[in-house]
């Protein structure tokens, strides 16, 4: 954002120029919200940049929110749960059922991983929807870590990597049966096996891109609509009235994004479960 905060604070408050400034800021580009802004620069050796950035901050906020919520929810661990504990138990049962339905009782060992995945992705998606304070510095703008392909890809690699590592650990070379499905005639194998291998390799990509693209698209649409509102408001009394239309659009898309935030976390978690099922039983 190219807003000059100190100038705004000094100048007498003028709605028109404020809106104009806001409009300029927003119209500058719907991609600016994805900008990575270093907060605490940390560089190791040659070019290894581990700076604490706004992305790191919002990952930390997701972690902190989860920590606070679960601390609060389980502070008493009562037999008759309160509201917070009840909602935490709903999430627990939800993921627990998902794990059990896809993998059965053996899947129990993956439950903490799937649970963490769901919570982390959901909170990252969801907290990124918080509106930023107008005029605040870019580093303090709300940010969605899962709108970055590298983040979703890392998570996907974690999931598929776990499938690979656990599958090989548990079944050894038997895990390779995954690429030769049971009951396929021998002469078809040269065709099927490459397809299965490609399908397996595309899993982390599909997992990563699905989540990333959903978050990216949602935020871009929100920002574009918001830009319309600001531009229309700032362009004189004639067009001000029309600004209500993109505003309604924002409200609609925002509600949709709530759903998407949950849905994508759910999809990520359940696909991980389905892939982990392969690690448990490669000969499907």
């Amino acid at each position: 954002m190219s807003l000059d905060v100190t100038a705004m604070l000094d100048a007498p408050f003028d709605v028109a120029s404020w809106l104009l400034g806001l409009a300029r800021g927003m119209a500058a580009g719907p991609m600016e919200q994805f900008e990575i802004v270093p907060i605490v620069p940390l560089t190791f050796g040659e070019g290894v940049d581990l700076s604490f950035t706004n992305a790191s901050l919002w990952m930390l906020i997701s972690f902190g929110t989860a920590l606070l919520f679960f601390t609060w929810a389980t502070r008493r661990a009562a037999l008759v749960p309160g509201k917070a504990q009840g909602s935490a138990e709903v999430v627990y049962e939800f993921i627990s059922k998902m794990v059990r339905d896809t993998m059965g009782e053996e899947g129990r060992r993956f439950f903490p991983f799937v649970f963490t995945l769901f919570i982390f992705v959901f909170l990252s998606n969801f907290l990124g929807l918080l509106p930023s304070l107008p005029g605040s510095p870019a580093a303090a703008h709300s940010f969605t870590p899962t709108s970055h392909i590298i983040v979703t890809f890392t998570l996907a690699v974690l999931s598929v990597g776990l499938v690979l590592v656990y599958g090989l650990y548990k079944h050894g070379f038997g895990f390779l049966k995954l690429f030769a499905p049971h009951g396929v005639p021998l002469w078809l194998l040269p065709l099927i096996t490459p397809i299965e291998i490609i399908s397996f390799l595309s899993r982390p990509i599909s997992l990563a891109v699905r989540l990333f693209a959903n978050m990216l698209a949602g935020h871009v649409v929100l920002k574009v609509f918001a830009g319309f509102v600001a531009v229309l408001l700032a362009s004189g009394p004639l067009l001000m009235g029309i600004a209500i239309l993109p505003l309604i659009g924002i409200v609609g898309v925002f509600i949709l994004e709530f759903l998407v935030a949950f849905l994508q976390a759910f999809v990520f978690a359940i696909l991980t479960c389905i892939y982990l099922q392969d690690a448990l039983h490669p000969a499907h």
Partner: protein
Amino acid sequence: MRALLASGASSLFLFGAAFAAEPVPGEQEGGLPQLDASTYASQIFWLLLTFGALYFVLSRIFLPRLGGVIEERRNRIADDYDQAAEFKRQAEEAQAGYEKALADAKARAASIAAETRASIDAEIAEMEEENDARLDAKIHAAEARIAETAERARDAVFQAARETTREIVSSLTGEAPSEADVDDALTTAREDIHARAA
């Protein structure tokens, strides 16, 4: 389902690839921040750090705590169900015992009533018999007395008839008939009367 997801994912991938294929003029001007590889190390590092930390606290602290309390509740509910079933069984037992006692009492009452009725009936029958016997005895005595009285009366009448006959005969003939003749005549006359009456 999986095939559908896969095809959707691949189209999304193409979409992503289209983004990637766009020329990136520079980091500051309009480039997609997601494709700025210089931020990747930091993002991966902090992601693994926060994700790992979240995994640690969830798997070590919160999930066991939540799972524990859910398990405990489930056990408690199962226990309560068991206990309720036990109480129900006990209540049914008590009910059965009560009903049995009630039936026994009823049966006993009925048998006592029947016994009492029988004994009373027997007593009544005995008393009736006794009464009948007493009455019979009285009737017999009365009948005997009546018979005796009738005999005496008959004798008295016979005596009177005998004397009257003797008087009449003696006054008619002037000589007193012997007692045996009078008796004979009277007996004949009486038999004659009896025969005629019959």
